């Protein structure tokens, strides 16, 4: 057991989620490792402080009455004809295409790339008067998150989400008046990721897989399912083991990405039903012509 594994095991032990075998290994590691003992001690101190945080001040006596007065004049909304799952999957699936395109092509982004404008919202000029992207500084915490979270493709997704929490509409809205600026910020975030050999390999693999998927689609062996996942077509019977693995890996990652975004989008979908999804579809239709994922490695 190395330090990282020991520290992870210690955290899991706090949730009583550590198997006896790992518990023994952890005990043995801690007996010999002062650094990890220090880690555990510091973590205990922090968690104790967290649990002992001062309680909330009392609720003002008239608080609920004030809220009730507001509720009395607030109408409810009737459930939409849309089910939540449909826009979640449609939007998340669409975002996956956008992200996939960025992964494939971001290494080619030159510094100071001109903003790529999508369809402008109704009533808005095609070229919004945004301040220069160069003037935008990502907060250090977000950069740290990006740097720390790039061990695999999903962790890159998480890192991008961390950026989105700084500029929230970055991921939630693929279209709208902030869209070009958001895209530039998104690219700026990607460019901040240090291209270690490990990450280059991940991106290269991702690139290769997207190309393989495109080839399978072009051959009529797989198609895009309504749920944002790949689906097998009749010709799929003759898929090789490698092609089956490509299919399964791609769907596994898509599903994980969809879950990740769906978890963050749950509240934004009220707007997505009426505004974002139709806009995004138009945007993606235009963008997909510009950035075919099957371009060479």
């Amino acid at each position, binding site marked *: 057991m190395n330090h990282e594994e020991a520290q992870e095991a210690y955290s899991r032990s706090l949730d009583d989620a550590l198997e006896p075998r790992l518990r023994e290994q952890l005990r043995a590691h801690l007996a010999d490792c002062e650094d990890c003992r220090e880690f555990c001690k510091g973590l205990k*101190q922090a968690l104790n402080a967290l*649990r002992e945080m001062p309680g909330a001040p009392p609720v003002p006596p008239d608080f609920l009455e004030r809220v009730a007065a*507001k*509720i009395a004049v607030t109408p409810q909304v009737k459930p939409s004809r849309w089910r939540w799952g449909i826009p979640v999957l449609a939007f998340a699936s669409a975002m996956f295409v956008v992200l996939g395109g960025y992964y494939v092509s971001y290494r080619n982004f030159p510094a100071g790339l001109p903003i790529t404008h999508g369809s402008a919202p109704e009533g808005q000029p095609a070229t919004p008067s945004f301040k220069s992207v160069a003037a935008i500084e990502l907060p250090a915490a977000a950069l740290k998150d990006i740097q720390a979270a790039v061990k695999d493709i999903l962790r890159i997704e998480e890192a991008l989400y961390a950026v989105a*929490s700084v500029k*929230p509409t970055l991921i939630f809205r693929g279209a709208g008046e902030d869209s070009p600026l958001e895209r530039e910020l998104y690219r700026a975030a990607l460019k901040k990721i240090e291209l270690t050999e490990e990450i280059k390999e991940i991106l290269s693999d991702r690139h290769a897989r997207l190309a393989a998927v495109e080839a399978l689609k072009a051959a009529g062996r797989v198609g895009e399912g309504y749920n944002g996942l790949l689906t097998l077509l009749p010709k799929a019977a003759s898929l090789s083991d490698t092609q089956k693995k490509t299919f399964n890996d791609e769907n596994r990652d898509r599903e994980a990405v969809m*879950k990740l975004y769906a978890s963050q989008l749950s509240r934004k979908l009220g707007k997505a039903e009426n505004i974002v999804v139709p806009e995004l579809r138009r945007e993606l239709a235009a963008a997909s012509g510009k950035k075919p994922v099957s371009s060479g490695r």
Partner: protein
Amino acid sequence: MTEAGSTEEELVLKSQNGDRAAFEALMTMTNAMCWALAWRLTGNQGDMEDLVQETHLKAWIAIPKFRAQSKFSSWLHSIEFNCYMDRKRKQGKLREVSLDCVSGDGERPVMQIADPSPGAPAQMEASERASSIRKALDSLRPEYKQILIMREQEGFSQEEIGAVMHIPKGTVSTWLTRARADLREAYLKAAGEKL
């Protein structure tokens, strides 16, 4: 309250049909939970009142869409956290006011007066711990902050956290590990700055 004696499920059903009295009863049942969470998230009374009020209002508006696939309290928890995130986004960052330098209303600075009583050093130490952990908590990624509050302060199980945050149990475990490590680092740093 005329709704006394009704179960939570009954109150939810009535609220979904526009019964304001039933919703007020639900609000009374859940307000302490919302209030405590708001305090943990914001750390000052002005913001927490606004947050809890907004949570109740949004819950009222959205309750016809509640499908009872999760517990009502979990659903409310999601709404409150989303409201907090929205406010944070709109404001850039919520006002961060150290707990040890504000009055109960979160607005006026409190004078630091030396206390000669025997318990004063211990109180000061506790106050410094509270200040450091608040600073550390506020420095975390929002989802890490949420997951730590739910697990360490509110005692949610990993399954319950997964249901609220819509993530698989494996992800809950991973995020908890990372969140704890980040909290430790931030706390020790904040505590070290006070020495």
